[in-house]
């Protein structure tokens, strides 16, 4: 199995190894943070020194280390506006105030911010990936239960599942998100933040993330229910009858015969659902979380730079490519039943 994998992807693996080696070499050659900072003007150094003893600091020092390249910017607020930017690449430090280096610096900075480096887990690409993955896992589990309920012969059970699916597919996710985050705590008199310890400074983001996960999961469950139901019902009836003839009960039939076969038929649709959720994740802007789309929109409004969307697209494509590959593998694995 393993050798097969290496043989199948030998070309891609070699390419990846070459890129990795180049990156490592570039990373080693990259100038250190101190070197980048040593290029700052004397006035800026003076401001930084003055800040050390001041209660209202004025200098914002940004340092973005993006493995093969790094970027530093120092800017002041207040009446006297100063701004200095530097890019470090292959042993040299370049001023990044204009021209190609300015664009390079911006790209590094934007990518860094969108990936959410040095930020908590509920930020940028990390938020997008975490929320999407958890939502789809939650959605598939909930969806399977709902699908089984919907095809069950018990009227009450199938009715309840039907109403649930109707409700969550029939209303917009954004409104569901608003209801979970604003209306539910308002009506029941609790705050999402209070579910986490009061000393946790990030509780407010965690609370919002939990609310988002619940809203997304409940919504995704309804969509996944239909995916799972259609997959189960696509299995030939004869299989049920054969299992019954062998003396299997309903539970055994489902877990040993039907569900393993239907997984393969579910994967393409679940993969679709995954990509939909990945992009829907940008709706969390409404409850003050920042995913890739929100970060890039913010950068556009504050800096007016349209270049920001290029790294955003690349990041999305990389995520989609990675998870697409994984879904492909899972699908192949379950194809053995066909």
């Amino acid at each position, binding site marked *: 199995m393993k050798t097969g994998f290496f043989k199948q992807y030998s070309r891609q693996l070699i390419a990846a190894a070459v890129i990795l080696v180049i990156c490592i070499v570039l990373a080693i050659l990259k100038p250190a943070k101190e070197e980048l900072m040593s290029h700052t003007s004397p006035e800026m150094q003076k401001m930084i020194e003055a800040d050390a003893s001041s209660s*209202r*600091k004025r200098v914002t020092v940004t340092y973005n280390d993006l493995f093969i390249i790094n970027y530093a910017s120092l800017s002041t*607020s207040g009446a006297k*506006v100063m701004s200095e930017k530097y890019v470090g690449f292959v042993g040299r430090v370049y001023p990044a105030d204009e021209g190609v280096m300015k664009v390079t610096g911006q790209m590094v900075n934007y990518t860094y911010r969108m990936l959410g480096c040095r930020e908590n887990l509920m930020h940028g690409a990390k938020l997008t990936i975490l929320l999407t993955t958890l939502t789809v896992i939650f959605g598939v589990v909930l969806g399977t239960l709902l699908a089984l309920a919907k095809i069950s012969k018990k009227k009450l059970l199938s009715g309840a599942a039907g109403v649930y699916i109707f409700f969550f597919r029939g209303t917009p996710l954004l409104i569901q998100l608003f209801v979970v985050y604003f209306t539910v*705590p308002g009506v029941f008199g609790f*705050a999402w933040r209070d579910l986490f310890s009061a000393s946790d*400074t990030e509780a*407010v983001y965690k609370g*919002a993330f939990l609310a988002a996960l619940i809203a997304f999961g409940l919504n995704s469950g309804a969509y996944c229910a239909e995916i799972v139901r259609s997959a189960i019902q696509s299995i030939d009836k004869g299989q049920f009858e054969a299992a019954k003839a062998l003396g299997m009960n309903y539970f055994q039939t489902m877990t040993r015969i039907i569900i393993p076969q239907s997984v393969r038929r579910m994967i393409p649709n679940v993969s679709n659902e995954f990509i939909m959720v990945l992009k829907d994740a940008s709706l969390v802007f*409404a409850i003050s979380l920042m995913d890739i789309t929100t970060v890039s929109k913010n950068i556009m409004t504050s800096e007016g730079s349209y270049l920001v969307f290029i790294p955003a697209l690349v990041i999305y494509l990389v995520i989609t490519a990675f998870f697409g590959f994984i879904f492909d593998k899972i699908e192949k694995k379950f194809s053995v039943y066909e």
Partner: protein
Amino acid sequence: MKKRFFAGMCAVIATLGLVACTSETGTETVTETTETETTETETAETDTETEASSVIDLSGVKLKSDGVLSVGCEVGYPPFEDFADDGTTPIGYDIDIITAVADKLGLEVNIINTAWDGIFAGIDVNYDVVCSAVTITPERQETMIFSTPYINNYQSVVLLADDDKTISSFNDLDGMSIAVQKETTSDILMSDYKSTGTIDVQIVANEKVTSCFTQLQNGEVDAVVVDSTVADGYINSSDDFVIAYKDTAEAEQFGIAMGKENTALQAAINQALAELEEEGYIQETYDYWFGAAAE
């Protein structure tokens, strides 16, 4: 038979819908014409007035459409701009000011409601100017130009009324979670306090300022940092909130923003604002929207 009945119903509903739409458009056109008429008469008046005093030179001013000042505005920021109870007419301090300015220039006003995100990107694309409680900042001045300021504003901290915290400066927000409206001066100021390492504060940025107050009420955040003018509006309408701190040392000024090349329009608007100031119109409008007692 049933099917046919259903189809008939559909047809009836569709026709009703169409009729409703048409009648609506009808009334709209009517109001528009009356509006135009009034503007025209007013323009005539202004013309005579300006002839008497000074003529505002509009030559060299490029507008998106002739005779109309297109204004980008994020309607939903009371008392600066908000929809009247009919849900379609924009009203507020900014609207009054820009309408008066346009009157002075002999132009019609077309308010274009737009999201705050990307509002400046629309200058010279979708509208000529932005008049939407825009603070004049050096960063913004790099990409656009401003009229002379038409109101002063301060950053303020709003707490729940039953909160016993005392805030005597923004440094007292250390360790708290605060809500701000995204990409407003409040957001920029608080982000600056955080990024420079002055205080450690968790910033929750929202699209709408109203969400900030909902979060404060629900207990998701400890405080809201917002323009004092907006805070005044909330305090007046609700007993739940108090202004804990107002940064009177650093006044912010609101101006009308426009494209960098549009200096001719800037000069014309500045002249109109100066005349309005002289006539006492700006003070009058201020008293009307913020109350004569408000600072």
